[in-house]
């Protein structure tokens, strides 16, 4: 044996990592480099030779009314959805772990269920829930005598983003709830006992014990949840509203797709992609910084 144990082990580790690394480079790193590269070109994405135009795509982007609208819409969703999703997830997780309900397991399954459904299925399901005449929402309102409040939720620019937000929250809340439940299970019950002996109410315990102890997990889920909105919103918007009415539910991902494949304006779409990439990165860094705390 010429090789030492250390070298052999090193080689073995390298051999195990190699396939994964190769796939990662090929399917993640290389396309990302291509996106950055092509964003500087004029290209239909179909036949011709790409033509270098420098940063013109980026300049055009910020003068594009539709893009700015899509940005506002996406921003709205990226703000509302994570906040409400995580709040609901935390509260539910706290209730389910603290209570002595026998049906805990059942509730956990039911809440978690939406997050494993295909996004297209969820979109079609909610399209029918919001259906102006046959859907649950409007039929329910009429049953309760509130028929005046029934409107075309997905067709009115004032309500469409909120309607989509509800769908996104419904999809994700269960997933994060289960994560938080696992986290809470890791908190020693002695803390809660001690607190209740000292006279702390359930709500005080929630804020003073549960949230701080879960903080690291919450930090991670904030980033996941914001990015999740970006990706999931594409399917939800495409199927439920096609970006309508009149672009008021257009999100950056659907606009990117439209420019790339319908308008054959690939370079421009790549520029939008670069912008999204940078924004996501910035948001992740910012939220990391803002939620940072000294180690304890």
């Amino acid at each position, binding site marked *: 044996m010429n090789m030492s144990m250390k070298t052999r082990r090193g080689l073995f580790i390298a051999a195990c990592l190699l396939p994964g690394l190769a796939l990662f480079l090929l399917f993640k790193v290389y396309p990302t480099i291509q996106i950055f590269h092509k964003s500087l070109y*004029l290209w*239909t*994405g*179909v*036949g*011709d030779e790409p033509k270098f*135009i420098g940063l013109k795509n980026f300049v*055009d982007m910020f003068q*594009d009314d*539709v*893009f700015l609208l899509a940005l506002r819409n996406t921003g709205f969703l990226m703000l509302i959805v994570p906040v409400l999703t995580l709040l609901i997830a935390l509260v539910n997780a706290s209730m389910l772990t603290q209570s002595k309900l026998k049906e805990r*397991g*059942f509730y956990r*399954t039911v809440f978690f*269920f939406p997050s*494993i*459904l*295909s996004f*297209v*299925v969820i979109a079609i399901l909610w*399209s029918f829930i*919001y*259906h*102006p*005449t046959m859907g649950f929402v*409007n039929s329910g309102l009429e049953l309760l005598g509130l028929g005046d409040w029934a409107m*075309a*939720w*997905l*067709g*009115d*620019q004032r309500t469409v983003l909120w309607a989509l937000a509800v769908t996104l929250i419904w999809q994700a809340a269960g997933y994060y709830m289960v994560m938080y439940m696992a986290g809470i299970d890791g908190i020693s019950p002695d803390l809660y006992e001690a607190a209740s002996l000292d006279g702390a109410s359930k709500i005080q315990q929630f804020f003073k014990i549960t949230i701080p102890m879960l903080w690291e997990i919450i930090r991670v889920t904030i980033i996941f949840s914001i990015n999740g909105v970006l990706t999931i919103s594409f399917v939800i918007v495409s199927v439920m*509203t*096609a*970006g*309508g*009415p*009149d*672009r008021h539910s257009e999100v950056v991902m659907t606009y990117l797709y*439209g*420019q790339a*494949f*319908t*308008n*054959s*304006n690939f*370079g*421009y779409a790549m520029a939008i992609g670069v912008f999204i990439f940078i924004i996501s990165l910035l948001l992740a860094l910012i939220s990391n910084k803002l939620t940072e705390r000294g180690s304890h």
Partner: protein
Amino acid sequence: MKPKKWLTTVAASVVAVSVLAGCGSNNGSNEASPSASNPSSPSASSEGGKQFENMELNVAVFQGGYGREYWDQIAEEFMKDYPGTKINITASPKIAELVRPKIVAGNPPDFMYIAGSDNTPILSGLIKDNALTDLTDVFNEPAEEGGAPLKDKILPGVLESRSSSPYGDGKVYLAPYNFGVMGLWYNKTLFDEKGISVPKTWDEWFALSATAKENDRALFTYQGLYPGYLEEIIVPSIYSVGGQEALDQFYNLDPEFWKSDTFKQVWGILEKIANEDNALMKGTIALNHTQSQTSFMQGDAMFIPNGTWFEDEMKDAPREEGFQFGFLGAPAFSADKPAMAMTNVEQMVIPAKAKNPELAKEFLKYLYTDNSVKLNAEKSKAVLAVKGAADIAKEYISESMYNVYKAVDEGIVTVNGAFQSVAKGSKYNPSDEVFKPISSIMNKQMTVEEYGDKMYQIYTNIQNELKENGAQE
């Protein structure tokens, strides 16, 4: 097992199975296994003694409501008549996605039939890139030995229109396939039973609003999420008011169109639909095509715009008792003008970088033979854009569909058109810009004036881009 554990197991398996519920979709390409006859002679000659250097043809087709049997069969027939040739067919509902990487790699199929709103944008890309083969000579050649040129067989006006000749230079780059007729539909049974006469003008049409109310329905609905369907009443109306001149202004992206009377009159109709009582069915704006079409068939609205694919698309959908498809086209503006309808033609192309354009052109010619037209009618239940195709197809298509095509043959004036290409790199898509904001008009959140100003600006921008692009070339 204890009950609690059993319950958990059941719940887990329900969850697991439901995950599989998402995996129902078919995957893209199926390669038809062609049976090449006469493999013995290496330099096989075909019918008519035609020789081809390359005997293999790669064909990509859209597989939609019309299915793929026609293509499989016509390929078999072709291979029999041209022994030694081999045709590989790739068919998919998402054919553009499948074909795109091949095109980008410079290795496109030899022949493509692209249809379906998800797929046709790739044709716009190819047109912008000048990446299609000129097919004019195929249509100038005789259809059969010593006969009249093929173009005489094609429905009049089709080869000259922008859907076949996109550059306006008289050269054909996209060959016509199935043709459809689009316009307003109504429930024929209702009209017959209640003695309602089919409206010939827009005034008569709006007057039916009261009749509609008596029959517990709104006057009109459309595919809310996809306001592009409204072109089926808008385009014929533009022609009806302003003639070909106005239609050309509209499609050629002339900003002055948005200051014209034609615009005001035609869009006035949309405004009226939005504002009049009982005119627009409640909730229309949020409905997709299936939902709105089902509502129409269940009797919630009296009219809906759609095309000749309507009956087949909704064949499994619920409908009110005795429902029968009646087609109206688009009403005229005054009693002296005829009713109109919009037509659309599906397209087939041969990419410029195809490896085997000669055989592809021969295959294209073959598709217009009488036998092929009949086979198409039988297998796709569709009508090819050739003269007399409706009669050839009569025994295979439904009565209502046949009546529509017959009406076109006998008197309804048809219009057709497509937007001029925008500059390469333009973020504008004229179809989106024109039709999407109509949702805001229907929601009463935008007036026709505001819309007109906005469109004038957009068309001006598009023209500026085209000028800049032209200057750079």
